[in-house]
């Protein structure tokens, strides 16, 4: 879909066009913000910050690539900056609680819904959560994540492995529980 006219109208300050653009992407973008935060209120804060940036920098969008992709990048950057501002996530990067060490084994079959999976990702410690989102969902390399979060590439790699393992173990556990529950049913 070509959003050229919509963007032009937004740049002219057309409030209706701005609202339309917001409505078009808001649900998807809130999903992104939700994955990086711990509460819906925080996710909405990030979403608001992100859309303000979108509208104030819309003149920089040169119609190269998808508008949705451009907005998505802004949302991710906003979420990361929000995490940095609330720098509590820093300490979690050094999280080494053995209780959280992953269960190794084969990758599980993904039977969870999107919301259930997002709920599990949000239960990861904040540092793990950010690294997992950046690598597994956004597709950033560990070198890039290292730059973004101010950590070594190796740290990012190892933290991701732990986050991944942890998530897999939770998914497996949930799947097993669900199966047990279904078997138990008459």
């Amino acid at each position: 879909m070509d959003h050229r006219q919509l963007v032009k109208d937004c740049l002219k300050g057309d409030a209706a066009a701005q609202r339309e653009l917001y409505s078009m992407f808001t649900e998807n973008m809130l999903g992104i913000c939700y994955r990086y935060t711990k509460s819906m209120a925080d996710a909405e804060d990030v979403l608001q910050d992100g859309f303000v940036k979108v509208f104030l920098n819309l003149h920089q969008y040169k119609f190269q690539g998808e508008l949705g992709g451009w907005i998505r990048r802004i949302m991710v950057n906003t979420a990361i900056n929000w995490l940095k501002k609330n720098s509590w996530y820093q300490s979690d990067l050094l999280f080494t609680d053995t209780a959280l060490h992953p269960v190794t084994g084969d990758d599980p079959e993904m039977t969870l819904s999107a919301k259930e999976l997002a709920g599990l990702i949000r239960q990861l410690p904040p540092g793990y959560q950010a690294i997992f989102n950046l690598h597994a969902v956004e597709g950033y390399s560990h070198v890039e994540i290292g730059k973004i979060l101010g950590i070594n590439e190796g740290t990012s790699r190892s933290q991701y492995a732990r986050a991944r393992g942890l998530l897999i173990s939770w998914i497996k556990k949930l799947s097993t529980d669900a199966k047990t529950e279904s078997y138990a049913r008459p």
Partner: protein
Amino acid sequence: MQDPEFEKQVRKKMEELLFSPSESVWAGVETRIKRDRDRRRPLLWMFLAAGLVLGGGFYLLNQRTDPSAKQITAKSDANHVPGAATPSSAGSVKQQDAHEQSLSNDPEKSGDGKTSFKPNGSVKKPASRLFSGETHAASPAKSDSGGAGGTPGTRHPSLDSKKEQRTSITDNSDVATGPGATHPASRIPPKPGPGGTPDAGHPTPDSQKQSLKEGTAATKPAVAKSNPPAKKKSWQLGFTAAAGASPIYQSLFQGATSYTAAPLAYYSFSPAARTPSRYYTPAQPKPGFSFSAGAFVQKTLGKRISVSGGLNYHYFSNIIQTGDYSGYNLLIASPNTGFATVRGYYSNGNTQSYTNQYHFLELPLNLNYQLNQGKKLLFFAEAGVSIAQLLSTNALHFDYGTGAYYHDNSVFNKTQFNGALALQAGFYSGKTFFKLGPQLQYGFTNLLSTATGDKQQLFFLGLQLTVIPGRTKR
């Protein structure tokens, strides 16, 4: 090695993740956009208002100057021609002669200059025309009582003659052309030559006639004796243009930009302050072409001093060597917004030249001092300040971590405060005054507005040309 299947499944699932935000989110977005727009608007209005004030001020002052100049001219007529209202007086006959002469020089009336005045049959006509012109500019109501026999005026209801209308239109155009033109004698084109220069003041009809009859040699003394000093235009409109080069300096005395100390500061904004194991060095910018053009109004404060203010467009540029362009995304450490992904960048290298361009709107305020009292060539020193607003730029910003050049307009200070110095040689060509000479401008404000403290000061060095049309010799 991890199986990427899990990541693929996660990515796919997360694409399906949709939530509807509460209405307050949009309300907040809307409010903040509006607030930001309101914050930016005053700056734009400030420039527009300054332009309007300058233009309006010039117009009003010009309007105020014109009637007074006319009054002086009119009074001088009355002094020289006491019997102006009496058709039989010698003075009025002389004046009529002068006006007939002037009318015959008017292309509008060259065919029927004399006959057009016959229906009124009043030798007072030229004087009344003079006053009608004055009252027109000052107060239309006064024109009704401007003189016996009916003063022709564009808004006078008693006008019924086409010839009179034509005359009145000419009167009106006189008002528009300035104080000198309101005098009937000023219709006579200036006579070239030593005694008849266009700047020889405003000759009265007597002197004008005398000069016409007796030749140019007698003109100057006659003018000196009979003319009261005509009031000079206090404000003058001029135009300026300059062209040269615009280097970028780190500071006034530190020469070309050097980034060597920057990287440490550059990375200190990061949550975990650190020094990168490797950083790149950007290319030194070379001076590029620069020019400016604008208009100004100038007021004479003393015999040698004048002040001017105006509005200029100023273009700056500098050239850097970069590597090839890539349209891919790149993660950079933006000095203001933290880590960000930019789409499209130039790599570090020497494969091509890139011109950083800056477009500014400037409001300059200058003080001019005339250094000598020569007759042909005058020298001026000019010093001034200006406030400038960055309209747009395509300039690239350098990322030390990746060595890439990318666009980020948020790193520039949009409002600049400049100082300027100029030396100029001035000369007249006809009624136009020209000034030409070198100009130096220095940007006191750091061009970069980054948390890292990088410094870039814009310089301009070039040749400036100033043109003041219709300026009278001092």
